[in-house]
């Protein structure tokens, strides 16, 4: 009867290796794109290379969550609810204000970095609030 899940051995190193390889690939792709050395079809696929470290990060995050004890997992679940709600409400409110002309209308291709910031800020807020509840 396992109370806490155990982390798979070697998993973080595999992810770190994957992240390093994809970071190197991203650099090569960026240089090739700058010099216009990539065929049009390949370039479209190549722009997605920087997404690979992100996938590796979330796989690592999921593994880390599985290694936590049951209360920690509950805390993170509740923090994710805060994150999901906070980010969703913020994005919706900003969109409504942008349509009304109250704030600059940022295109989605430029807005996503801010969305990541909001996701991590709301996650941190959620963690702080929920941890306090179980202290």
């Amino acid at each position, binding site marked *: 009867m396992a*109370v806490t899940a155990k982390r798979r051995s070697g998993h973080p190193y595999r992810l770190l290796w994957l992240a390093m390889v994809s970071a190197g690939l991203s650099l090569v792709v960026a240089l090739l794109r700058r010099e216009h050395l990539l065929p049009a079809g390949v370039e479209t696929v190549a722009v997605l290379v920087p997404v690979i470290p992100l996938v590796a990060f979330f796989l690592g995050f999921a593994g880390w969550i599985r290694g936590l*004890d049951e*209360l920690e997992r*509950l805390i993170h679940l*509740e923090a994710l609810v805060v994150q999901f709600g906070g980010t969703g409400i913020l994005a919706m409110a900003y969109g409504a204000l942008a349509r009304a002309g109250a704030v600059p209308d940022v295109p989605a291709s430029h807005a996503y970095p801010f969305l990541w910031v909001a996701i991590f800020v709301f996650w941190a807020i959620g963690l702080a609030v929920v*941890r306090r509840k*179980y*202290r």
Partner: protein
Amino acid sequence: MRNRLRLLRATRGWSQAQLAERLGVSRQTVNAIETGKYDPSLPLAFAIGRVFGEALEAIFEPGDEAPGDSENGRR
């Protein structure tokens, strides 16, 4: 749900961290159970019973809440 975790731990002279280590959970989890802020899962409750050599009903007893109201963190 009420429990005698703090009393049982004190009689053995264990700190929360020591009990947490025996149970394979964090000290925060032990503290949250002792203060009644968190009700452990059945596997963890059995692990607690095993560590203290007591039956579950000797450690935990139902509170005033109805079965559907025993959600964690609702205090």
